[in-house]
Structures are given as structure tokens and as C-alpha cells.
């Protein structure tokens, strides 16, 4: 990390241009902000909360509290967990804004959504 300021200085002209576009994606900016983690529990065959809204860069962690295995699978398959047995966890970091619908691929009536907006 000690090298970072020097590196940043060299990149300064570039960063100045990029900053308004990239926003939180600039490495220096992310390092300054605390990492955000939001948890969703899987309980009684439901994702709780079913719909969550988070800022870009947030890591969402799902924990299976049921005695039946479940999965966290994006409808568009852009992310998917392995089967989570009781106590199993799965994390995914949402970097870009949008709405990400997901379901349990074993019990597809179980659905949820992550809304990412800055």
C-alpha cells in the first residue's frame, strides 16, 4: 500500500478524467470507504428479506437456516451458489447498478431480488 500514493500521482491526470465516470470504482476511493456487507437469511423456504436495496460494492451474504439444502441462483445465471446445507453461506459482491432477481434452483418457488443503486 505504501507504493500506492506514488502510483496514484503518476495516474493523476488519468484519474481526474475518470473520476466522474467511474465513481466508487477508483481503487483509492474504495479503500477509504468501509466495506459494506448485507446479510439475507434463508429460513422456512424463503429469502428474508426477499427484496433488498444496496449500494454498488456491497457484498451480500446468504445463510441457510433450514434443514433442507437451498441454492442462491441468479435468474440470468450471472451468479450461483453451490447447494447450501444447514448453516451454509454464500457471498456475492454487487459492483454494478441494476436489479438482480434470483431463486432457489431446488425449490424454484423461492425467489428474491437484490436492487443495486448508488
Amino acid at each position: 500500500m505504501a507504493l500506492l500514493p506514488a502510483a496514484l500521482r503518476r495516474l493523476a491526470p488519468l484519474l481526474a478524467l475518470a473520476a466522474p465516470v467511474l465513481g466508487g470504482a477508483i481503487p483509492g476511493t474504495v479503500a477509504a470507504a468501509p466495506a459494506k456487507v448485507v446479510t439475507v437469511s434463508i429460513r422456512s423456504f424463503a429469502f428474508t428479506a426477499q427484496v433488498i436495496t444496496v449500494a454498488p460494492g456491497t457484498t451480500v451474504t446468504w445463510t441457510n437456516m433450514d434443514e433442507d439444502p437451498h441454492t442462491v441462483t441468479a435468474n440470468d445465471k450471472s451468479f450461483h451458489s453451490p447447494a447450501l446445507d444447514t448453516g451454509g453461506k454464500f457471498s456475492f459482491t454487487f459492483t454494478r447498478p441494476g436489479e438482480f432477481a434470483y431463486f432457489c434452483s431446488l425449490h424454484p418457488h423461492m425467489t428474491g431480488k437484490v436492487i443495486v443503486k448508488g
Partner: protein
Amino acid sequence: MDPHDHPDSLDRRAALSRCAGWAGTAALYTVGGGVTSSISLDTALAAGSATAAVRPFTFLQISDTHIGFDKAANPDTRGTALRAVERIRALPHRPDFILHTGDITHLSRDDQFDDAKQILSGLGTPIFYVPGEHDFLDEGQGKAFLAHHGKGMLGTGWYSFDHKGVHFVALNNVADLQPGGMAHIGDAQLAWLKQDLAGLSSSTPVVVFGHIPLWTVYEDWGWGTDDAAQALSFLRRFGSVTVLNGHIHQILHKVEGNVVFHSARSTAYPQPTPGAAASPGPLKVPAEQLPTMLGIRTADFVRGSAPIALIEQTLA
């Protein structure tokens, strides 16, 4: 009589008493309203029609062994599966074969498939499998199941065979499930099913077996199959169709025209009746009560009586 059993006529019950005799403590019920006279075996034999080829025989259904499950609802699913095997061994009439209607394993692990195979192979009876969603949750989405049981199967695991004049169809309705839906058969399998049934005489008795119910038992819990109506449309012309499933770990019946649906007990753990709990899932009951809620099912094609009689036996 089992409290779940549907009402039966006295004459039917009397007619079946001879096969109930060997059932010990088993609960007995028969297939009623969905069976038409066109497939009465006596009629068929007397008429010398194509169904004259149907000969009496017995097969057995076992379901939801969930080998590998060890939570509070049953810490010893291996033990209860072994108890089911003992019950099958003790039957005075050896079944011609066994249908396993899925959830063989709890987590699709190779060691669980191996263990289940070891437990059931002791019977020396052919076993025909269909996968449950618990057998399809590996990263390969069924690769493990197909490696263990896929020989001779088509697609993701479907096939058919004939036995003593009865046509058996194995369906996989746990592959490639869709967001917000229930179980799913899929276009490829439906196309195959249509073709598979096309050459059969309408008087051929048909037995369809799959994991998740082919009728909507309870949509809120996903207990049904999205595209079952299409499958059933191919089966409508047959005089007798029996649909056997597992998944819901309890006995339920439904009659819809010529089609009778029966869901079976598990050998592992019970689940709540539809809507009786916040969600489906393993139901913990007092230890002494557990064996009364687990079981196996014998199916008899009985000459001179009802064409098919199902006998439920608990593990108590």
C-alpha cells in the same frame, strides 16, 4: 385403515382381503374411482384383447430415503432405510421389482449414492430409479445421479419399460427448474413421452412414476409440476393410468378421470401436511412416533379383483 386413506367400498375391501391377509399391520387401500371396467383383468382376459397379456404381479415403491440426512427429524436415515429393507425381505411375496421415486440421497454425494446402493442391493431385486431434487443438486446438476443410475436412461434421466403387459414410464421433473415455478418436465422429455406412448393400445395399463407430484398438491410450497397438464393430455386416452410420486413424504391420493395419483411416505422423515406449517421441510415428531410416519408401498396387479391394489406399510 390409515387415516389418510380414501373411502373404499365394502365389496372392494372384501375382495382385497385375501391380499391384505399377508400385510400384517399394513394399512390397505385400493385404487377406486379412476379405474374403468375396460381394464378389469377378468374382462380383458375373457375378451382375449391386447391386455390379455397382463398377468398378476407385485411391485414395490420406496421413496425419499435421503441417505446422508442426519438432523433432528431423523438422525439415522440409514437405519430407517435398513428397516424398510427388512420389511421388504419379510414380504411373503417377493416383488418383481422396486421403484425408487427419488431423493435417494440428501446431498447428491457419491458416498451417499454408494451407501444407498449398498443398503438396497441386499434385496437382490431390480430397482428402477428416478431422481429427486436432492439427487440433482451437485455442481454437475445430476451428473452424480446419472453416473450412478443413468445407464439406459435418456436425457436427464427418463425411460420406460414393459412388465407383464403393463407399461411403466419414469419421468424426471427435477432438472432445470425455472424461477418462480414448480417442478418441470420440459419440452424434450414431453416430446419423448408423446412418442413413447404413441404405439400403445389404449387398453394398456400405464404406471407413471416421478419424484414431485404431477398434480398440484400445494402451489405455495412448490408441490406440483408446471407442465404436468401436457403430460396428462397424452395419457388421457388410456383406460388406466396410475401416477406414483414421492417428495412430500406423506400419503395423498387424487382421482382425475382415468388417472389416479398417489404420493408415498418417505423412509427418512415426515413433512407437514400442506399448509399446516410455515413451510415444508423435515418435521420433527416424538421418536416413538417416527416409524409410524415412515413407510413403503406394495402394488398388486390382482387378477379377478381391482386391477391394482396399493398396500401401505409403516416402519412401526
